[in-house]
C-alpha cells in the first residue's frame, strides 16, 4: 500500500511537470488555433540561453532569468513579425508546418549560439527525498518535485486568471475561431500574437529551468514535448486548467501502469500508454476533458 501511494504521488508530481510543458502548447493553441510544434525547441532555447548566460558571463541566476525573459520576448516579437503575420488566415496545417520550420530554426540557433554541450543548471533546490515524509511514512517524495509543483500551480492560476479576467482572453478565443473576422472587429492580431508568444516563451523558460535542473540542459529537452502531448489531448487543447488536470491523470496512471501492468507485458509501456489512455478518453469526449466542444453544423 505504501508503495502504491509512493507511485501515485510520484506520478502526480511528474504529471505536474508534464502539465508545465503542456501549458505552453495551450497558450498558443488558444491564440491561433495552431499546434505549436516549436514549443519543445523553445523550452530548449530558453533553458540553454539562461544557463549559458550564467556559465559564460558568470552572472547569477537572478540576472540571467530576466535577461533570458527579454530574449524570449524578442523571439516572440520576431516570430510574430516574420512567420505569423504573413500567414494570417491560412489553414491550420500551414501554420502548423510553419512552426515545424521554426523548430528547426530555433534548434539550430540555440546550438549555434551556445554550443551543443550538455550543461548543468542548479536552482538551489535539492532533489532529495523529503526527510519528514520518509521518516514518518516511509514514502519518498522529492523536495524538488514539490517545489516544482508549487511553481506550476502559481503559473496555472496566474494564466487562468489572465485568460478569464482580461479581455485578451476573450479576444484569444475569437482569434482561434476565425482570424479574418477577428481582424474585422479590430482585434489587433499582431499584438495579441506577440503577447501570447512572449508569454509562451516565459512558460517555456520556466519549464526549461525546471526540466533542465532535473535532466541537465541538453537537446533532449525538446523531446519533453512528447510527454506533454497526451496531457494536452486529454485535458483539451484549449484549456489551462485542462492541462493541469490532464497532467495529473496522465502522470499518475502512467506510473501506476508501468509498475503494475508493465511487468506483465515486458515493460517500457510508458512510451505509449499515455497516448492510448488519452485516445480512450477521446473516444468518450472527442474534444478532451475541458476542450471546447467542436461545433459541426450545417
Amino acid at each position, binding site marked *: 500500500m505504501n508503495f502504491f501511494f509512493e507511485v501515485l504521488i510520484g506520478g502526480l508530481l511528474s504529471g505536474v511537470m508534464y502539465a508545465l510543458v503542456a501549458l505552453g502548447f495551450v497558450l498558443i493553441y488558444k491564440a491561433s488555433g495552431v499546434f505549436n510544434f516549436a514549443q519543445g525547441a523553445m523550452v530548449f532555447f530558453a533553458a540553454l540561453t539562461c544557463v549559458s548566460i550564467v556559465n559564460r558571463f558568470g552572472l547569477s541566476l537572478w540576472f540571467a532569468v530576466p535577461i533570458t525573459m527579454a530574449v524570449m520576448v524578442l523571439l516572440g516579437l520576431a516570430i510574430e513579425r516574420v512567420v505569423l503575420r504573413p500567414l494570417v488566415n491560412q489553414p491550420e496545417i500551414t501554420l502548423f508546418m510553419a512552426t515545424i520550420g521554426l523548430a528547426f530554426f530555433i*534548434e539550430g540557433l540555440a546550438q549555434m549560439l551556445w554550443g*551543443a554541450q550538455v550543461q548543468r*543548471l542548479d536552482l538551489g533546490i535539492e532533489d532529495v*527525498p523529503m526527510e519528514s515524509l520518509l521518516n514518518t511514512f516511509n514514502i519518498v517524495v522529492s523536495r524538488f518535485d514539490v517545489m516544482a509543483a508549487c511553481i506550476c500551480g502559481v503559473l496555472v492560476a496566474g494564466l487562468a486568471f489572465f485568460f478569464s479576467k482580461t479581455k485578451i482572453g476573450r479576444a484569444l478565443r475569437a482569434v482561434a475561431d476565425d482570424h479574418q473576422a477577428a481582424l474585422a472587429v479590430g482585434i489587433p492580431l499582431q499584438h495579441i500574437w506577440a503577447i501570447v508568444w512572449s508569454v509562451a516563451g516565459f512558460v517555456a523558460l520556466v519549464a526549461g529551468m525546471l*526540466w533542465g535542473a532535473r535532466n541537465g*540542459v*541538453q537537446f533532449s529537452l525538446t*523531446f519533453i514535448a512528447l510527454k506533454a502531448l497526451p496531457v494536452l489531448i486529454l485535458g483539451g487543447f484549449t484549456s489551462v486548467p485542462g492541462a493541469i488536470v490532464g497532467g495529473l491523470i496522465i502522470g499518475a496512471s502512467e506510473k501506476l501502469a508501468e509498475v503494475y501492468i508493465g511487468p506483465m507485458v515486458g515493460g517500457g509501456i510508458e512510451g505509449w500508454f499515455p497516448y492510448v489512455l488519452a485516445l480512450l478518453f477521446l473516444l468518450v469526449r472527442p474534444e478532451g476533458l475541458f476542450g471546447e466542444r467542436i461545433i459541426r453544423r450545417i
Partner: protein
Amino acid sequence: QEQYVPLLSYRVGPYAAGGTGFYGGVIDYFNLVNMNGGINGVKLTWEECETEYNASRGVECYERLKTRNGGASLVEPLSTGIAYGILDRVGADKIPMTTLGYGRSDAANGKVFPYVFPLITSYWNQAAAMVKYLGEKSGGMDKLKGKKIVHLYHDSAYGKEPLPVLEEQAKQYGFELVKIPIAPPGNDQQSQWLQIRQANPDHVILWGFGVMNAVAIKTAQRNGFPREKILGVWWAGSEEDTTPAGDAAKGYTTMTFNTPGNYPVLDEIRNKVYAGGKGNLEDKTRIGSVYHMRGVTAAILSVEAIRNAQAKYGKGKTMTGEQVRWGLENLNVDAARQKALGAFDMFPPVKTSCEDHEGSGAVKVQQWDGKKWVAVSKDWVVGDKALTRKLLEESSAKYAAEKNIKPACLGAAS
C-alpha cells in the same frame, strides 16, 4: 600523397554533445599526425558530413563521401543505426568500418564480417566484464549467488543486446536478474526507480543512452538509492552524463574502454594542434574528456592500421580500402607501441586477427569524483570470453545463413 577518411559526424541534434567530442578527437589526432609529417609522409585528409545520427542521412553521407579523393580508406559512423545501414555496403565497396564499442557484437567474427571491426570491445564482452567486476567487488564470483541485479535498460535494440550474456551468467552464477526497461528517451524514470527501491537489489546495471543517464542518476538520488550500487555502461559514462546530475553523480561508476587521465599524446595535441589554432573543439577544456579520448583512440587505431598496411604494401603510399582492411585485421598495438605513441594504457592493447576483429575485449571501471572520471582499478577487466565467443559464433552463423555467406578469412589484398 594523401590518405582520405570520410567522417560521418553529427554535431546537431540530441547526440551532438557526443558527436562533437568524438569527432573533435578524431580530427585533432589526424591534425597531429599531419603536423608530425603524416604516416610515412602520407598526409591524412578527411571530409565531414552531417548525419544528425539519422540512418538514412548517414547512408547518404557514406555514399557521397566514399568515392571522394580517390576513395575512402575506412569509416567510423559512431551510430548503430548508420552502422547497420552501411553494413552490407562496406563489404561491397571494400571499405572497412570500425565500430568502437557499439554495433553488432557478432561482427567480431571476421570470417562472416570481413569488413567490420568492433575494435577493443563489444556489448557482449562489456556485459560479461560487468558481471565479472560485480563478482570481484562482492569478493569472488561465488558471492554473486543469491544476489539480485537489476538490468535497467534503454528499451530498444541497444538495451536488449546484452540480455543473452546476462541471462546466461545469471544461470551460471546463480544471481537473480531483474529486467526493467525504460521507454526512450527516458526523460522521466520515477516509476522505474520506485520499482528498484522496492526490489532493493544489490546492483543496478544502467544500460542507458543520452538523457536517460543523467535522469537515472538524479532519480536514484531523489529516491534515496545509493549511487555506489549503480554500474553504468560506457555510453552512460561521459562528462555529458554526469555533469547535469551534479552532486548526485559523485561516486557513480561506469565501464569504459579508456583509462581516464592525461597522456603525452593529449599534451601534444594541446601544444601543437590547439596552439597552432587547428584544434577542433570549441572548448579546450574538453580535451581528454571521455568522448574526446574515444575519438583520439579511434583515430590512433585507424592510423596504426594504415601504418600497418603501409608496412606490408609499401611505405609512403596511399592505401586502398582493401589494404587498410588487412591493416586492421593484423593490428598489434601493444604496450610498447602505446608508449611510443604517448598513449600508454590509454586503451587496452589491441591485437586483431581474422577470427577476432575485436582484438581485446578488456574494459575498465571508472568513477566520477564530482569533477572528473578516475579509474577504479589499475587492471583491465575481462569477462567470460568463452561464453561471448560461443554466442558470437552462433549469431554470426545465423547471419551468414540468412545472407548466403560462406564464412572464410579474406587474407591479404591482391
